[in-house]
């Protein structure tokens, strides 16, 4: 699933008006806007027919009408005609139907610039598992507890698709460093960094460091194969082999430059850790035991550094708490937070009847040293 598509879908959610909605979005809206607001709890039990079946007008026909420049108002009129259920609705329900369809088929689209907040929301709704269920509100808390701002040196180990790394980079604003600990030869699976399209200044603070190097306690050379592992596609069948050879020299130059850049960034990242200049450590863990990261990084953190550990698994944080409590750490605290959206409408104010609640826990503390 492409990030662009995510961002697009996100717009649909936040946008008061849109044209590009998939038809199933309508059905969802009908659940949450049902006249009995408690309906949303167990929609399956109600066995509502999907909108498609009750609507005789095909989706294709609607799109065709739009191509022809037919106005949103006319499209809605056709939809009302085609709706099997319209006549059986109450007047109130009919007016709601028209209102909803009018919104949906009016001719404006809202385009928003990607922001960390919107990105966090989009990925959380689409793929909470791969994001370690990190909610936008908890990401905000992590940044604040870690004290990320211009000029800070922050070490990040995360399994959240680059979201934490990207958020840290934005807050550094081109000064300081964001050491990103990654597996393999090249930082992979960090779409949240790439999709923000950071300028050179902000990008300059990203310092990817290989786990291998951290484990070895020193920078390692790349393995002997010409191309960095995992980076280029392994598309070597005969028909394309010829072309590949032709491009080889250019590629060599480019690859070499990229590799040198990576090595230089890694050197800076490792140096920053070794010289005890890291002011914050953020761990956003899904499968990796935070203690495994703490063992390598904690001893080298600058005194008075903040440690912030996020995980959907409370027991991992309990173990990490015990680990930190035995070392020199103060202000250790484990928190969890509920984030609820309110529906604010005249005479119908209440918290949303259902929403995504998956999330995690945040452990934070401050490293201190003896006299």
């Amino acid at each position, binding site marked *: 699933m492409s990030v662009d598509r995510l961002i697009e879908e996100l717009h649909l959610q936040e946008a008061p008006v849109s044209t590009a909605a998939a038809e199933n979005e309508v059905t969802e809206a009908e659940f949450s806007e049902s006249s009995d607001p408690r309906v949303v709890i167990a929609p399956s039990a109600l066995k509502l027919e999907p909108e498609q079946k009750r609507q005789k007008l095909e989706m294709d026909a609607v799109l065709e009408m739009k191509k022809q420049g037919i106005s949103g108002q006319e499209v809605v009129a056709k939809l009302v005609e085609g709706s099997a259920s319209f006549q059986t609705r109450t007047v109130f329900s009919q007016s709601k139907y028209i209102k909803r369809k009018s919104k949906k088929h009016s001719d404006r689209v809202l385009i928003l610039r990607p922001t960390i907040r919107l990105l966090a929301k989009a990925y959380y709704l689409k793929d909470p598992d791969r994001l370690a269920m990190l909610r936008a509100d908890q990401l905000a808390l992590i940044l604040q507890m870690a004290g990320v701002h211009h000029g800070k040196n922050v070490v990040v180990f995360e399994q959240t698709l680059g979201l934490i790394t990207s958020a840290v980079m934005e807050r550094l604003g081109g000064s300081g460093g964001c050491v990103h600990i990654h597996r393999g030869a090249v930082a992979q699976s960090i779409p949240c960094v790439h999709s923000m399209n950071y300028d050179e200044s902000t990008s300059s603070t990203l310092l990817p460091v290989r786990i291998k190097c951290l484990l070895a306690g020193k920078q390692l050379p790349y393995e002997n194969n010409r191309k960095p592992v995992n980076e280029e596609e392994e598309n070597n069948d005969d028909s394309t082999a010829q072309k590949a050879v032709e491009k080889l020299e250019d590629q060599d130059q480019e690859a070499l430059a990229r590799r040198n850049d990576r090595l230089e960034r890694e050197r800076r990242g490792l140096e920053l850790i070794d010289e005890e200049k890291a002011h914050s450590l953020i761990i956003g863990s899904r499968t990796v035991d935070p203690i495994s990261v703490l063992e390598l990084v904690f001893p080298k953190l600058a005194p008075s550094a903040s440690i912030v550990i996020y995980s959907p*698994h409370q027991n991992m944080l309990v173990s990490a708490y015990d680990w930190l409590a035995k070392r020199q750490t103060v202000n250790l605290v484990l928190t969890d937070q509920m984030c*609820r959206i309110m529906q604010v409408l005249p005479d*119908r104010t*209440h*918290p949303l009847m259902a929403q*995504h609640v998956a999330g995690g826990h945040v452990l934070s503390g401050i490293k201190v040293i003896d006299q």
Partner: protein
Amino acid sequence: MTVEPSFLQYDERIQEGDTVIVYVTYGQMVPTVVKRGQTLMMKYGALRHEFIIGKKWGQRLSATAGYVYILRPSSDLWTRSLPRRTQILYTADCAQILSLLDAKPGSIICESGTGSGSLSHAIALTVSPNGHLYTHDIDETRTTKVLEEFKHHGLSTVTTAVVRNVCTSGFHVENSADGVFLDVPAPWEAIPFAAKSLSRAKGGRLVSFSPCLEQVQRACLAMAAAGFVCIETIELVPEQKKIVGQHRQTLEEFEEIGDAYPKERKRNQEGQLVENTPRVSTAIVFPYSQPTHTGYLTHATLLPVLD
């Protein structure tokens, strides 16, 4: 000894006429009245009622395409499986409402509306055998249906269902109830009638369920105006968790195999099966999307009138 079908008491073994809860999978339970000659169709195929009769409650039975369990009905299981005619009150709210009404055997409770009878069953079971539930609804199909269910469930003697708009006509009984429960769009209209239906000599409790805060605000004012004291509004937000087997990786393992959950056992270089790091059971919030609001519960006390 053979007893009449009843949610309150039953034999060790299932008889014809009993209401049973057929447990198919987690989240899918089907209530059915056992009757010779009938067949239940569900996910795991067909199950002839003949096979149910005489079995022990809780027993596993084979259907044509899988097996199911036959469970004793309880208030909670009924709530989870009942035929829904309206939006219903779920177990967390039902439990809290019973407590806020101080309901117990012998209590006289008025309820409106009846809806699909989820809470009605919970109240009827709690006030049995010597209390009574008066349930009111404006829709006759609902009261008729719940009366039918009460009959099948052995709750007829402790229940009365009335077609009545309590907001305009008040409750079926006056000066006798121990508790009144309201789940109506305009509770403030029913509150003065609720005060009338409560026992003057003993006083009583009032509980009102409303999804919206504006309803709560008006209900609180109406309760104070009707002489209720100790008015309090609460909200319950349950959170459901599931237990998963969690694999804690070291950085070395992560570097080697990535974040895919490894198999519990793997082969080493000599081809022998070796145990991997054992998994740890841990609770995570699941499902990811959950109900976060049903309604506010406003409760209050009417003091007895001392003569």
